[in-house]
């Protein structure tokens, strides 16, 4: 049930009418999806099975059933009324809910969508985090004790990695912060394709659930990469891996299309490319990567599905398993930059505000992001050195080491900005510094790994696991938390507790480095990836690494609770507490209002903190506001 103005009848009378929705949209989505699944599954079973219904669920039937479930789910949560009916020229009875209900249905408001993405992503983070805790619990002993079967451990690794990569790493900063902030930052009242965006967000919870419940179909042992020919020999759980990732990547693809068009075409007057905010640069570069590589991995996974359910021998021993590996890493390496590029942009967004100094060498920052984006397509085979000849290794090794140059531009810009500034230490700025430190460790170990001699030694050991957690948690998750604190006043009109924020930051910094720093050492000592049991001489170190991992998990939980508390009950604060110059701080966060009543005109540089020149002219109600 929701309250709104009825369209059509009563239009113009401004008399609010109470409209009943027959049931909560989420409920409707579940029912439509569930019924759709049963029908489609049954039809496939009737058509294809020699003895229909025995068993009721087969690999082909569950695949087709899931696709129909996905369609039913998004239509049910509101896409049918809100988007599909208008697309077919029918009048829509859709009335957007008000109050908290608006978060539980299809919406076209970029702020609501951004929050839906952030919450879904955080949900994925903690579900996959729970899986990580279970892995670390198992690894406290050198023999099987928590999991009775190795397949269960490996499935947990796969669920952890898959949900983390596709619903957190790819989503939190882009679908989440990007959807919420980008329209405001570029002085627009909406994104370019609000309906598409309203639909895409609902694919995230579906994708997370699909992967999390993959054991319903059986264990799978490939990890987040779905390696062939292993995937063909696995139990059927691997199907939900493919399908869940399909939902998640489709969501991110739609976000990329929407945000690119938003940044290119919806900028306020005067917001030239030279003035474009750094975070918008980050989002546009990452979106171009998404637009190219997400369809690539989707078609690859389709080949994986067909190989199983038809079946085809694409990637079997008589086919070409190596082709799968190439196709996977062609996407897989750009994926790591999809994760980290928006984080680099966040450094450049937050540091000038906290130093009250102009952004140093802005052009280099932009060039760095663009070159990282372009080079990221040239390095994929560094994941496959063990399968390659020396002559093939060399160019990939070279380009991989070269990519550290444009990456270092981000450091140049960040350090140049802090240099001799009045650096203000608070939770967001501290977390950004920590992110820079962690990502430096991650990046430098990456240069080591690009060296064939080292790579062939530490390939598939915990050294690699340490390396990529340093880049992803150290670089991206720390920046994400920094951004949550930084924009908390924007999201909620309230402030967090500075002491708690700083203590939490130090807590996760120590726990993180103690955990993953030891992953390097474990790897160098011979600890393999993807094993629930290991030689006993590694047991003491694994035991104590796990303790730090639990502390890290608790630290993340602490931040979650603190941020939640601050948004609900933190002290009220002024509109722009950091005295930032970017446009999002000038806009309205009220969900019932447009961002800007009148569109702003940009007249200056957002990052010039050394002067008081006006940045934008916003025609307000009582005259013109110059900021």
């Amino acid at each position, binding site marked *: 049930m929701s309250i709104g103005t009825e369209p059509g009848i009563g239009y113009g009378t401004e008399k609010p009418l109470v409209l009943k929705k027959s049931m909560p949209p989420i409920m409707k989505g579940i029912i439509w999806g569930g019924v759709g699944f049963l029908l489609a599954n049954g039809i496939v079973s009737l058509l294809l099975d020699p003895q229909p219904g025995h068993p009721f669920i087969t690999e082909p039937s569950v695949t087709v059933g899931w696709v129909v479930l996905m369609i039913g789910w998004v239509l049910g949560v509101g896409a049918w009324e809100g988007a599909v009916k208008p697309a077919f*020229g029918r009048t829509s009875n859709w009335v957007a809910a008000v109050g908290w209900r608006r978060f539980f249905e299809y919406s*076209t408001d970029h702020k609501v969508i951004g929050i839906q993405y952030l919450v879904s992503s955080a949900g994925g983070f903690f579900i996959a985090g729970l899986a990580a805790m279970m892995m670390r619990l198992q690894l406290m002993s050198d023999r099987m004790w928590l999991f009775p079967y190795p397949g269960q451990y490996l499935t947990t690794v796969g669920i952890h990695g898959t949900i983390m990569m596709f619903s957190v790493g790819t989503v939190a900063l882009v679908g989440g912060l990007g959807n919420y902030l980008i329209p405001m930052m570029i002085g627009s009242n909406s994104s370019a394709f609000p309906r598409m965006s309203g639909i895409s967000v609902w694919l995230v919870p579906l994708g997370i659930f699909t992967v999390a419940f993959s054991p319903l179909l059986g264990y799978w042992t490939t990890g987040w990469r779905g390696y062939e020919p292993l995937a063909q020999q696995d139990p059927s759980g691997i199907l939900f891996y493919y399908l869940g990732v399909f939902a998640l990547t489709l969501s991110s693809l739609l976000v990329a299309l929407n945000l690119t068009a938003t940044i290119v075409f919806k900028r306020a007057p005067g917001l030239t490319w030279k003035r474009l905010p750094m975070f918008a640069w980050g989002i546009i570069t990452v979106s171009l990567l998404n637009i190219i590589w*997400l369809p*690539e991995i989707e*078609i690859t996974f389709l080949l994986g599905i067909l190989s199983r359910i038809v079946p085809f021998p*694409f990637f079997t021993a008589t086919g070409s398993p190596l*082709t799968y590996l190439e196709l996977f890493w062609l996407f897989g390496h750009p994926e790591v930059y999809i994760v980290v590029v928006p984080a680099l942009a966040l450094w450049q967004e937050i540091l000038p505000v906290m130093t009250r100094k102009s952004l140093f060498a802005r052009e280099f920052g932009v060039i760095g992001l663009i070159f990282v984006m372009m080079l990221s397509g040239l390095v994929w085979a560094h994941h496959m050195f063990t399968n390659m000849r020396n002559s093939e290794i060399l160019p990939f090794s070279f380009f991989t080491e070269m990519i550290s140059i444009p990456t270092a531009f981000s450091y140049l810009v960040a350090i140049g900005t802090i240099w001799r500034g009045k650096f203000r230490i608070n939770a967001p700025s501290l977390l950004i510094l920590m992110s820079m430190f962690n990502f430096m460790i991650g990046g430098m170990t990456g240069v080591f790994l690009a060296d064939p001699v080292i790579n062939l030694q530490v390939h598939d050991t915990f050294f690699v696991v340490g390396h990529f957690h340093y880049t992803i948690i150290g670089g991206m998750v720390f920046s994400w938390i920094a951004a949550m604190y930084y924009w908390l006043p924007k999201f909620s009109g309230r402030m967090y507790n500075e002491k708690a924020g700083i203590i939490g930051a130090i807590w996760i910094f120590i726990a993180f480095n103690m955990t993953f720093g030891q992953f390097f050492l474990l790897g160098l000592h011979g600890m393999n990836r993807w094993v629930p049991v290991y030689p006993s001489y590694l047991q003491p170190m694994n035991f104590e690494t796990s303790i730090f991992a639990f502390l890290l998990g608790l630290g993340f939980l602490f931040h979650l609770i603190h941020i939640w508390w601050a948004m609900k009950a933190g002290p009220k604060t002024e509109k722009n507490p950091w005295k930032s110059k970017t446009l999002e701080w000038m806009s309205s966060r009220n969900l019932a*209002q447009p961002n800007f009543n009148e569109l702003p005109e940009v007249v200056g540089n957002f990052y010039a903190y050394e002067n008081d020149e006006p940045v934008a002219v916003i025609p307000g109600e009582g005259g013109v506001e110059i900021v």
Partner: protein
Amino acid sequence: MSEMQNAPTLQNNDLPDLKLRASRGGFTLLVASQAVPIIVLINLRYVMAASYVSSHVDQLTGALISLVMIASGLVAWLALMNVKQRNRSQLNRYFWITMVLGAIAAVMALYQLWFHGVNSVGHYGETYLTITGVLAGYMVIGLVALYSGKSRNWRVGLNDDNEFSVGSTFKYWIFIVLAWLIMYLDLYLF
């Protein structure tokens, strides 16, 4: 509709052509992303089976599908040329002809999938079936898109707001026709 739609925005205020440019840009990006799987499949065909063509493949039906697709593409192109006139019944006719031809092609592609003579555990066969199936999928999506364009044209009529998006359903169909033709050359001839 949410509150946002009625709020003063860039589009309904001072810069009316921006919305059109955004739609055009977004559509171009969409097609670019949709072309990526096609490129992967072209590569896959040569990786798996070099330029081998099975003698069991139904050449006649393949050629017929291509002819029907070309015809539907031409109609779609004609329609595109005439969208600006906003002639409701004329456009409706174009929609119907494109859709009927497209549906015939799609059914024939499904026929190829079901009654194929190729060996599905051979490398040519698996590539042939995958590509045919993917294109049949694209065709079905394209037909749904055309149907949405047709319904909007018929029920609401064209206006400044929807002219581009209704017309773009024809453009999307033309993209699918081109994709089919490339794959036809790739699979059946070279």
